[in-house]
């Protein structure tokens, strides 16, 4: 018994770590498990009762089986990619302007760019809806895209700016001193060094756009441009199709694969560095 308490005293930090990890991962594990369950009815999609667990591959083999599910998924991916592309380009340009140049209104731009991050989504959603109604812009893909680009830009600017600020401004001069035109200096020196920041910003923008519900819900209006989060919310009223769990699991696995690939790359690079030094 004393041995047990001694073991606890020595390992409690480690144990606490495991408990916390479990806390973080149990919900994901439940979704994964449920993706292999055939619920008795749509109202029991989220009931995990091991006594009635009915194993099936059906949710995976017929992943688009539920009406409208894959359409909404494709819409979300399409909106996400478009918003990410536009917000990343605009946000990167803004970051360069804010870090590289001194101009009238730079200070206030620097502050105002944070505003969309600080504003509650519910406020932003209602004000956007009012704006679009006032300007008589028809609700649908365009209004959703405008809204998503808007709230993604702030995050892109913050992420890219951090990376740019850490860059020695002499690097650009050194490249130009070594016969690189301004464009070559950007492409060969500045862009490769800022790229990790831009990629991180793009990933962040995509994930923000992909799962945004509140603002999207306002600016979709009465149109039938239903994104994935809105589809889930809507079907929740009638009962969620079990395929949602399969899609959620797949999305998790894809993100996880990205993380692992990134880790492996970093590890391989540091191993190569260690080998050459």
């Amino acid at each position: 018994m004393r041995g047990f308490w001694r073991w606890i005293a020595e390992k409690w930090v480690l144990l606490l770590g495991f408990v916390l990890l479990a806390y973080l991962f149990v919900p994901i594990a439940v979704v994964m498990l449920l993706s292999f369950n055939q619920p008795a009815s749509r109202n029991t999609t989220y009931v995990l009762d091991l006594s009635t667990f009915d194993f099936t591959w059906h949710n995976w083999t017929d992943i688009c089986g539920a009406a409208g599910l894959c359409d909404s998924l494709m819409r979300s991916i399409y909106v996400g990619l478009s918003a990410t592309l536009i917000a990343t380009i605009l946000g990167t340009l803004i970051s360069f302007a804010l870090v590289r140049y001194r101009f009238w209104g730079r200070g206030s731009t620097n502050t105002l760019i944070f505003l969309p991050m600080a504003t509650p989504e519910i406020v932003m959603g209602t004000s956007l809806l009012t704006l679009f109604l006032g300007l008589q812009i028809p609700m649908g893909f365009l209004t959703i895209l405008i809204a998503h680009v808007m709230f993604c830009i702030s995050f892109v600017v913050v992420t890219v700016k951090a990376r740019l600020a850490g860059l020695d401004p002499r690097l650009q001069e050194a490249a130009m001193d070594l016969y690189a035109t301004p464009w070559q200096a950007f492409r060969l020196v500045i862009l490769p060094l800022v790229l990790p920041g831009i990629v991180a910003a793009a990933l962040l923008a995509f994930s923000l756009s992909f799962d945004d519900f509140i603002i999207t819900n306002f600016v979709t209006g009465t149109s039938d441009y239903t994104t994935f989060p809105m589809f889930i919310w809507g079907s929740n009223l009638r009962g969620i199709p079990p395929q949602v769990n399969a899609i959620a699991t797949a999305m998790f696995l894809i993100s996880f694969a990205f993380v692992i690939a990134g880790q492996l790359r970093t590890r391989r690079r540091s191993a190569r560095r260690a080998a050459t030094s």
Partner: protein
Amino acid sequence: MTDQDLCIENVTKTFGGFTAVDDLTLTIPDGSFFALLGASGCGKTTTLRMVAGLEEPTAGRITLGGLDITRMRPYKRPVNTVFQSYALFPHMSVADNVAFGLRRKGENRADTRRKVAEMLDLVQLGQYGSRRPAQLSGGQQQRVALARALVNQPEVLLLDEPLGALDLKLRRQMQIELKRIQTEVGITFVHVTHDQEEAMTMADTVAVMQAGRIEQLGAPAEMYEFPASAFVANFLGQSNLIKAEVTGQADGHVTVDAHGNRLAVPSARCRVTSGTALLGVRPEKLHLADGLAAVPSGHAAVQGVVTDASFTGVSTQYLVRAPWGSELTVFVPNSGIAAPALPGAQVAVHWSPAHSFLVGS
């Protein structure tokens, strides 16, 4: 004047209301090692950046070998820079850093590889080509920056405080190294520094800058022995400057009255010949004697009291209070000939008039 001289003609650069470089005219001969020396903010780096094309002069002209480069884009000039922070490209290997300029100029692969290898050998980094800059020490990074600029065989190499980030021992080593490389490649080096010792050790010609203008320009020894102004006298090494009134001129000498002492300075060593002036003597050119009677004939002398003696190894530095209250610094080599003077001792400080100089106050 040969063909590839770098000429700066009446160049002025202002930033808002601040004049960084003020009507500067300067010719840097082809193949020379030229140092721009000055305290921070004196305009030396701005001058360098205008030659590199990273700043545009507000007025004036810069020519290189007769070609007007005043407004030429930096990437079109046959000039390369070694930056103070080195500005090595962190995402490229050492070899790729060095090859950068050659590749932009469209050199073929084989030539690029050969030149890069030769240049890395020249700076003794032959085995380090595949490393990243972050894996090298400060001194090694400095040499990569040098190789990256030199490999392009520029007409002029600009060095902006290149040794500033290195520790003292490494700096000495790199000074000799830089001098060796310059002699070997024969390219014009323009070296910006605030370290007077560095400027004097390395350069053929030194220009002392202050407030955007050149105070004096010349060979290091020449400037040290006969500075043009009180500023140069104190910026290049140390000087004892004694306030004096010019009283007259006679047989090749200017006579002055310094706090009641009648002293003479050879006319050839006088920057001013009338009014109030400063008589200067370097501390190592001053000697100590027990009393005025012991002063060799022909030497000028003043009496004083030793207030401090500090032993520095090769020499002893004395502070001697003159009757008018100011202190003179005297360096006496520890050659073992004379017994050291003790603080409080009455002494005569004397010097050969040929070692003194007169500058405007």
